[in-house]
């Protein structure tokens, strides 16, 4: 092209296209991709073939109610956990050794044991202290499986969120605290106006991850008789013995996670617009 114009002699030609060889790595990658593609196609074909309007009519409302329970449980416990995480994160950074040790122990326990075990302990374990709970008037709370699940999930996620918060605050250089103090700002003002706006940016991705992990972790809640999405799925499966019940559940979970992912992306792009040029 450039040779047709006499004036473009000095303009450099575009670099030659690298030769795209079939290296073993590329071959392996393409093969694996092909396998995944075929698997996805297989699942899709299976769904099309086994499409059963009767099944759909029968179980779609139950799936929806299960999804609603899941969203409520995850949403609420994430918020409650978020509130609880603030004092714990402060405790983690505290110079008081007792407070720091307590917060450390709390985070250590809830991050180190499975959510399943924690839920079981809260529901069946605390349940055996019924007389004591009745005496202090808290039995109404621990009697209901739903509250127990909310309680266990909130405690669990608060430990993770406290670590996210603490880690994010730690990324802000200590000089900023000192500079703010030199300007006469109180510690709370510094935290609210200077540290948190920067720290929360760092924390956004981990928060999104934690929400997604909690959503997926919530699938165990059916063992304490809360009919979430997974519980409804297992119930539908027990009645139909049809594997597509699980595929639909996977599809719904995937969609919710995708929505959360996009939302995190959007929020991040909005919050970091001053960093883009």
């Amino acid at each position: 092209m450039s040779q047709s114009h006499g004036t473009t002699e000095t303009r450099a030609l575009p670099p030659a296209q690298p030769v795209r060889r079939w290296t073993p790595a590329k071959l392996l990658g393409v093969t694996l991709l092909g396998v995944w593609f075929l698997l996805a196609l297989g699942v899709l074909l299976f769904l099309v073939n086994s499409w059963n309007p009767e099944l759909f009519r029968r179980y779609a409302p139950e799936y929806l109610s299960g999804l609603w329970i899941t969203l409520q449980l995850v949403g609420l416990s994430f918020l409650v956990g978020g509130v609880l995480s603030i004092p714990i994160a402060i405790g983690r950074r505290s110079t008081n050794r007792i407070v720091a040790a307590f917060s450390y122990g709390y985070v250590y326990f809830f991050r180190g044991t499975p959510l399943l075990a924690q839920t079981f302990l809260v529901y069946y374990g605390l349940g055996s202290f019924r007389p004591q709970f009745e005496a202090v008037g808290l039995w109404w709370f621990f009697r209901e499986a739903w509250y127990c699940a909310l309680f266990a999930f909130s405690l669990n996620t608060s430990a993770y969120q406290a670590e996210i918060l603490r880690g994010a605050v730690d990324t802000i250089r200590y000089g900023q605290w000192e500079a703010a103090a030199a300007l006469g700002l109180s510690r709370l003002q510094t935290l609210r106006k200077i540290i948190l706006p920067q720290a929360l940016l760092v924390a956004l991705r981990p928060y999104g991850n934690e929400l997604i992990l909690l959503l997926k972790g919530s699938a165990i809640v059916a063992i304490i008789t809360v009919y979430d999405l997974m519980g409804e799925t297992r119930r539908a499966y027990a009645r139909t013995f049809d594997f597509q019940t699980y595929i639909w559940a996977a599809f719904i979970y995937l969609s919710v996670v995708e929505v959360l992912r996009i939302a995190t992306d959007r929020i991040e792009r909005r919050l970091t617009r001053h960093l883009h040029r």
Partner: protein
Amino acid sequence: MRMIRGIVLSISALGLLVGSAAAQERMQLKIGTEGAYPPFNNLTADGKLEGFDIDIARALCEEMNADCEFVTQEWDGIIPALQAGRFDAIIASMSITDERREQVDFTEKYYNTPPAVVVPKDSDIESASVEALAGRSIGAQAATTHANFAEVTFVESDVRVYPTAEEYKLDMANGRLDAVVDDVIVLQEWLDTPDGECCKVLDTLSPVEEIHGEGIGIAVRKGEDELREKFNAAIEAIRENGTYKEINDKYFSFDAYGE
């Protein structure tokens, strides 16, 4: 493609060889069971299986001249595991129902006992009727005929299902449940232990054929008619030669076989 076909062919040929070699000796069978449903099948503290189902299974294997190996499997995945070939038969107090018949084949029943309702000793529930249980919480084990029955029948109650019988027992003891529905023998066994001191049998219920099925059978994969017939013949044989009665009397004071 040709290579894959070659591999598949040789694997299946190998399978045939192994299969025919075993057939010449004693029949090798893997029996799937749950191991959490006393007194029918449960794991002892040291991890051994015991119970009525297990003794019956051993007697049947003896009768069929087979070497049996037990595999324990979570209840709500027990049919898929059979279909996936993890074992050859389910002997785990499984009711013969139409829904399950679409997935597996059943032998004739080997026992049939009625369901019952258990309530705390100080309960004010007077009868096991839909009205008397309205607004109360009822526990049952998930994916069982009893759970189906409770959900279909006690529509005005709060039916909660648990992964195994152990959990509803815990929740009954903790006072979260007003009643429990299960097989009368399973419930009675529990009430006879110290853990069951909280509760009493309110009433037995008459089984509903469409839900509870025609009794408890052995499930095999669809189309395995030879194995099914062998089990049927063995059930008949142990009924006649007194082995069944011997096992039955070890556990129950009445004939669990039903009419």
